[in-house]
C-alpha cells in the first residue's frame, strides 16, 4: 500500500512538472510572434516558386533576392509610379542622358559601402553575362560614375520607359562579382550579399526553405519584421491547406494571384483575409510566332481568335473574377487603354476565315491541310508547372479541333519552355502569361513581348508596329502618347500577334491577424511597403 501511495505521489509530481513545462511552452509560443509592441518576429511566406540554386540567374532566387536582399536604383511603387530606391533623385533633359543621385550611407551586407562604381559595374557585368539583359538595355551606350554618389547613363536614343527597365535591375557588389566568371555557378553565401533590408542566412535545398534575418546595419528605415522564412510547396493545394492551418502567413506567387476555387474555404476562416486587385499583366495569352510559316497569316490568327469560347473560358477559369478581353490585348487597367473590338466566339466566321486563308480539309479526315496541301498540325507549347495553362490548352485544343485545326499540345518544363520562347524562337504557338513589369518594359503596352527586337515571343518585325513602338519610346507629350497607345492597341486588334484567352483579377489571401499588407502591381504582396508597415493587428 505504501508503495502504491509513493508511486501515486511521484506520478502526480512528475505530471505537475510536465504540465507546468507545457504551460510555460504555451506562454512562450503565444508571445513568440511579436517582440516589443506590434513588431512581428517571424513572417512565414509560402510559395510554389522553387529555388533550385542560390545563384543570381536562378529565376526564383532572383525573385526573392529582389524583394528582400537586393535593391535597384529605382523601383515601382504601390500605385505603379517610379519611386526612389538606391537613387534618391534623378534628372534628364532629353530622355537620353540620365543622372542619378544615390544614397550616401548604404552598405553591403558585408559592411562595405555601396558606391556609384557598383552600379556602373553591374550594368557592364550584366551586359556581358545575362543574355536577356541585352534585349532590354541594348540602347544603353555608357554608364559613368563621376563620384561615389552619382551615376550618369547615356542612351543611344530617348527612352521614355528607361526607368521601368531600370527598376528590374538589382545592383550587385563589384568587390564580390568582379572575380566571378560565371554567375550561374556562383552560389556561395557571398552571392547572397546585397544592400537590402534582409540578409539570407540559410538555404535548405532539400526542403526549399530560405531563412532571412533583418540586416542590422541597414541604411534606411528598419523593417517591421525581424525574420522571414520562405517555405516551398510543390503544390498549390498543399500550400493552401498549410495556410488554412496557420502554418504560413501568406501564400506568394510572382505576378499572379490564386484560383477562385480556393476562395469559399478561405472565406470560412476567420484568420484569413482576401484582397482582389486588377491584373496589370495577362493571365493567359496565346502567342503566335509570326516568323513561322502559316503563323505569319493575319487571317489565320484572326480565325483562331474566333474559334475560342471566351465566355466559357471566363466562367471556368475565373469564376467571376475576370472579364472577356478585347482584341487590343492590353488590360483595361493600363494607362491610355483603348476599347477595341471585343473578342467574340463565332465558329462559322472562324471556318470562313480559315477557308479564305487556304486551310481546307482536302483529304476528308476532319482536319484542315495547309494552303500548300501539306498536313497541318500546329504545335502549341505549354509549361508543365502551370497546371491552369495545361487545362486551358486542353480547352484550346477542343476549340481548334472544332474548326478543323489539328493542334498538338507540347508540354515542357519551365526551363526548356523559357529557352524556346526567349532565345531559340522555334515555337509556333505558345500559351503563357504576361506580368505587369513585362507589360511596362520596352515601350510598354506589352510591346516587348511582341517586338522581335526585345523578348519577341510573337517575333513581329513589321515596320508599322516598330514605328509606333519607337515613337512611344521617345514621346513625352501625354496627348501624343495617348494617341500612339491607341494606335498600338488598334494594331494588336487587327493583326492579332497574341490573343488574350482570359484574364483574371489578382486574388491574394493573407493572414488577417497582421495589418499593413500592401499589394504592389509589380512585386505583389511581398514588397517594401508590406515589409516596412506590417504589424500585429
Amino acid at each position: 500500500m505504501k508503495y502504491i501511495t509513493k508511486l501515486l505521489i511521484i506520478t502526480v509530481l512528475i505530471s505537475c512538472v510536465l504540465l507546468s513545462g507545457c504551460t510555460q511552452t504555451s506562454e512562450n509560443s503565444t508571445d513568440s510572434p511579436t517582440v516589443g509592441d506590434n513588431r512581428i518576429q517571424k513572417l512565414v511566406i509560402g510559395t510554389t516558386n522553387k529555388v533550385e540554386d542560390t545563384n543570381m540567374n536562378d529565376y526564383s532566387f532572383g525573385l526573392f533576392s529582389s524583394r528582400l536582399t537586393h535593391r535597384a536604383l529605382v523601383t515601382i511603387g504601390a500605385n505603379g509610379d517610379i519611386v526612389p530606391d538606391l537613387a534618391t533623385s534623378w534628372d534628364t533633359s532629353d530622355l537620353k542622358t540620365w543622372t542619378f543621385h544615390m544614397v550616401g550611407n548604404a552598405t553591403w551586407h558585408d559592411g562595405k559601402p555601396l558606391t556609384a562604381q557598383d552600379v556602373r559595374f553591374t550594368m557592364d557585368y550584366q551586359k556581358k553575362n545575362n543574355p536577356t539583359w541585352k534585349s532590354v538595355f541594348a540602347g544603353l551606350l555608357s554608364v559613368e560614375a563621376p563620384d561615389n554618389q552619382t551615376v550618369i547613363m547615356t542612351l543611344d536614343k530617348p527612352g521614355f520607359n528607361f526607368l521601368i527597365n531600370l527598376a528590374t535591375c538589382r545592383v550587385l557588389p563589384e568587390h564580390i562579382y568582379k572575380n566571378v566568371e560565371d554567375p550561374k555557378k556562383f552560389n556561395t553565401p557571398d552571392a547572397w550579399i546585397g544592400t537590402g533590408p534582409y540578409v539570407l542566412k540559410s538555404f535548405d535545398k532539400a526542403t526549399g526553405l530560405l531563412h532571412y534575418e533583418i540586416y542590422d546595419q541597414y541604411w534606411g528605415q528598419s523593417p517591421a519584421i525581424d525574420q522571414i522564412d520562405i517555405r516551398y510547396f510543390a503544390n498549390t493545394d498543399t500550400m493552401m491547406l498549410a495556410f488554412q492551418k496557420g502554418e504560413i502567413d501568406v501564400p506568394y506567387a510572382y505576378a499572379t494571384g490564386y484560383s477562385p476555387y480556393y476562395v469559399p474555404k478561405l472565406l470560412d476562416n476567420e484568420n484569413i483575409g482576401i484582397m482582389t486587385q486588377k491584373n496589370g499583366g495577362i493571365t493567359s495569352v496565346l502567342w503566335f510566332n509570326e516568323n513561322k510559316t502559316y503563323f505569319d497569316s493575319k487571317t489565320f490568327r484572326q480565325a483562331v481568335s474566333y474559334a475560342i469560347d471566351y465566355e466559357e473560358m471566363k466562367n471556368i477559369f475565373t469564376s467571376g473574377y475576370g472579364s472577356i478581353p478585347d482584341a487590343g490585348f492590353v488590360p483595361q487597367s493600363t494607362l491610355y487603354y483603348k476599347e477595341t473590338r471585343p473578342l467574340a466566339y463565332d465558329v462559322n466566321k472562324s471556318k470562313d476565315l480559315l477557308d479564305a486563308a487556304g486551310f481546307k480539309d482536302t483529304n476528308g479526315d476532319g482536319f484542315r491541310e495547309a494552303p500548300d496541301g501539306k498536313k497541318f498540325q500546329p504545335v502549341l507549347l505549354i509549361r508543365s508547372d502551370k497546371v491552369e495553362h495545361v487545362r486551358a490548352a486542353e480547352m484550346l485544343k477542343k476549340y481548334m479541333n472544332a474548326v478543323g485545326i489539328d493542334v498538338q499540345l507540347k508540354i515542357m518544363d519551365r526551363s526548356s519552355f523559357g529557352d524556346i520562347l526567349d532565345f531559340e524562337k522555334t515555337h509556333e504557338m505558345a500559351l503563357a502569361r504576361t506580368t505587369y513589369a513585362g507589360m511596362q518594359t520596352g515601350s510598354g503596352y506589352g510591346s516587348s513581348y511582341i517586338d522581335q527586337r526585345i523578348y519577341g515571343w510573337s517575333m513581329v518585325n513589321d515596320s508599322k508596329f516598330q514605328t509606333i513602338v519607337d515613337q512611344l519610346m521617345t514621346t513625352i507629350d501625354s496627348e501624343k502618347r495617348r494617341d500612339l497607345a491607341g494606335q498600338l492597341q488598334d494594331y494588336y486588334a487587327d493583326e492579332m500577334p497574341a490573343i488574350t484567352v482570359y484574364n483574371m483579377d489578382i486574388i491574394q489571401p493573407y493572414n488577417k491577424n497582421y495589418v499593413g499588407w500592401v499589394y504592389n502591381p509589380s512585386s505583389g504582396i511581398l514588397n517594401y511597403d508590406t515589409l516596412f508597415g506590417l504589424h500585429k493587428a
Partner: protein
Amino acid sequence: MELSLPGKLIKRLSDTGIKSLDQNPLRSLGIIILTVLVLAAVFAPYLAPHDPKQTGIPHQSPSSEHLLGTNDLGQDVFSELIYGTRVSLTIGFLSGIISIVIGVTVGIFAGYFRGWAEELLMGTTDVFLLIPSLPLMIILAAYLNPSMWNIIVVVGLLGWCSTARLVHSRVLQVREMQFIESTRALGYSDIYIIIRHVLVNTKDIIYAKFSLAVASAMLSEASLSFLGLGDPLNISWGEMIHFAFSRGGFANDLWWWYLPPGLMICVTLLAFIMLTMEGRKDSKILELI
C-alpha cells in the same frame, strides 16, 4: 486417343488453370474484377453517361445528373473515371508486356546459354536493379514530353529486372532436367528447345510475374501522373488525382473527385495481385515470386 473438340477445349481450359478456380476464390474474385474493368474499358462509350471531354459547371457535387460530380473544367467525373480505366489498363498492360518480354528474354537466354551470355545479361540486370527505378522514371518522364506512349516505354523499360532474375533461376533448374538433355541429344536446336520446352515450363512464373508487372506499371504510372508527369490528354486515374490535387480538389474537400480514382487504383492492383494467389499454401510459385 485423339480428343474430340469439346474435350480439347476442356483440356486447354484445365491447362490454363481456370478449372481450378472453384478451389481458389481469391483468384476467381481477381478475375471477376478484372473482367468487369476490361469490359468497362472496352464499352466505355456506352457506359459513360457523358462525354468526358464535355465541359460544364466546375466543382459540382454528386447528383443524379453527375453521379460523382464534376471536376475543375466541369467535366463529369464518373465518365472520366470510366474512360480513365482504358488509359490506366492500356498503360499497365502494355508496360507489363514490354517488361515481361524483356525480362523473360534476358532470363531465358542467360539461364539457358550460361557462360559469357549469362554474365553479360545478369550483370546488366544487376546494374539496372541497383538504380532506384521510380526516381529514374521521374527523371526520364520529365525529360521526355508527357505522353502516354513515353510513359509506357519508360515504365516498361525499367520494370523487367526482377522478372529476368526470376526466370533465370527457373531456367537454371529446367535446363538441367533430363527431358531437356534428351531433346538436346536428339539434335533439336536451342531455339526450338527454349520455345517448346523451357518457356512452357516457366509459364507459371511468367503468368504470375506478368500480373504483378501490370499492377506495378499501373502504380508507377499513377505515381508519375500524380507528380504531373503524365499525359493530360489521356486522362488516367493517376492523372485525375493529379488535377484534383492541383486544382482545388483537396483544399476544398471535393472527395468525389480524388477518392474514386484512388479507390479504382487500389481495387485494380488488388485484383492483379489476387490473380497470383495460389490456393495451396505450399505453392512453389508463391515462394518464387
